C-alpha cells in the first residue's frame, strides 16, 4: 500500500510520546523520501504523455500525487512533533540534555535545540530590571524561601549564592534556598521533604 512506511514513522512516534523521545529514524525517513522520489519520477514521465493528449493517464497521476502529499504530511508531522517534545524537554531538563536523550537526536535537531536555548536565554535576560528573570523557575507558586531537601544521588559539591560550598552526598539533608535547588529537584537529584 502507498505511504505505509510514513505511517509507520507516525505510529512509532505516537507510541513513545509519553515523556521520551525515540531515536531519530533516519533509515525509514530515507525510505519514505525514496518512495516519494519514485512516485514523482513516474508522474513526471506520465505527465509528459498526458500533456500530449493521453488523458487516460491523468487518474494515475492524481493517485500518485495524493500519495506524495500524504507522505509529505507524515514526514512533516514526525519532525514537528519531535521538535515539540524537544522543546518540552528544555523546560524539564534545563539547558543541558542528558547524554542518552541527546544520542536520539539528529544533527539538525541538536542545532535547533542550541538555537532555541540561545533564544530563550536572551529573552529571559531581557526581562525585568536587572539581570533578567528565570522563567523556568517557580513552576509551582512558592510558599517559603527555603526548603528542606534530601539528596537521592551523589551529586558532588554545590556552591550556594552566599558563597558557601556544600557537599551533596546521597541521603544527606540540607536546608537550601528554593530558587537554587528547584532545578535539581526537577531533575531528580534532590527530593523535597514536606513536614
Amino acid at each position, binding site marked *: *500500500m*502507498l505511504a505505509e512506511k510514513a*505511517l509507520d514513522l*507516525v*505510529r512509532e*512516534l*505516537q507510541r513513545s*510520546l*509519553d*515523556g*521520551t523521545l525515540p531515536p531519530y529514524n533516519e533509515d525509514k525517513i530515507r525510505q519514505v523520501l525514496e518512495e516519494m522520489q519514485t512516485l514523482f519520477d*513516474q508522474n513526471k514521465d*506520465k505527465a509528459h504523455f498526458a500533456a500530449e493528449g493521453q488523458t*487516460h*493517464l491523468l*487518474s*494515475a497521476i*492524481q*493517485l*500518485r*500525487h*495524493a*500519495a506524495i*502529499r*500524504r507522505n509529505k*504530511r*507524515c514526514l*512533516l*508531522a514526525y519532525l*514537528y*512533533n519531535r521538535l515539540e517534545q524537544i522543546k*518540552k*524537554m528544555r523546560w*524539564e*531538563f534545563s539547558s543541558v540534555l*542528558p547524554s*542518552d*536523550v541527546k544520542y536520539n537526536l539528529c544533527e539538525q535537531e541538536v542545532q535547533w535545540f542550541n538555537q532555541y536555548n540561545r533564544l530563550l536565554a536572551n529573552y529571559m535576560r531581557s526581562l525585568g530590571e536587572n539581570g533578567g528573570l528565570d522563567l523556568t523557575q517557580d*513552576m*509551582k507558586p512558592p*510558599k517559603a524561601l527555603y*526548603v528542606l531537601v534530601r539528596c537521592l544521588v551523589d551529586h558532588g559539591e554545590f556552591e550556594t549564592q552566599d558563597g558557601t560550598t556544600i557537599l551533596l552526598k546521597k541521603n544527606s539533608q540540607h536546608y537550601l534556598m*528554593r530558587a537554587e535547588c*528547584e532545578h535539581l*529537584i*526537577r*531533575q*531528580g537529584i534532590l*527530593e*523535597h521533604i*514536606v513536614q
Partner: protein
Amino acid sequence: MAAYSVDLSTGNNYFDLNDILASQEKIPCIFNIAVEGLGYLDQSTPDPDIGVGTKLELPLWLAKYLHRDARGIVSVETPKTYREGYRQILAADPSVVDLHRLGPHFYLGGGKLALFNLPDIQDVLKTLLQTFQGRFRRIMDGSQNALHTDLTNQINMLDESERRLFAAGQRGLLEFQSWESRESEKLSTSSVVLNQRKRKWVGACRDSGD
C-alpha cells in the same frame, strides 16, 4: 505544570498525529475510471491496471482526494461499521459496544465521512453524537469515582479520543487528591525525567543480559 487541555481535536491540524492515524481508516470505493499502472494496490488480481468498477478499500486520505463528486475517480460507500446494522446496535445501547474494536478512531474517522456525499451521512453523524452522549456518563463516572478499582475492562472498550478524555478525568481526580493531602505544594521530579530514567534503567538491564 501540565496544561489541562484534552486533545480532542476535530482534525483540522495538519501536524496532528491522531488525525493522521484516523485518516488511515478504510472506506469502500468503486473506481469510475481506469487507473493505469497501479494494479498493485489491488492484491486480488495480477492485472497491472485498476479497471473500471473495481471495488477496493482505500484509506480515507486517498479516497478524499480521488472523490470529488459523481464524476470523480472513485465513488464511495459508507464503511461497514457506520452502516444501518451497526447504527441500530449503537442506538440500542451505546455504552456496551466495544468502540475500540469497531475502529480505534471511531469518532474522528466517522467525522471525516462528512467530507463525502454519502446518502446516509446525516444519520451517521447523528449516531456519532448520540453514541458519545450515551457513553459520556459512564466515562465520567469511571474516571472520577473509581480510584482504586481495576478499570481495564472499561478502558478497553473506549475509542482513542474517549481514552484521552478518560485519562484527563483521572489525572484531575489524582491531582485533587494530592491537593487535599497537601502533596501538591511539594516540589517533585518532573515526569519526563522520571520516564527517561525508567527507560534507561530497562535498557541497562537488557544490555547486561538480564
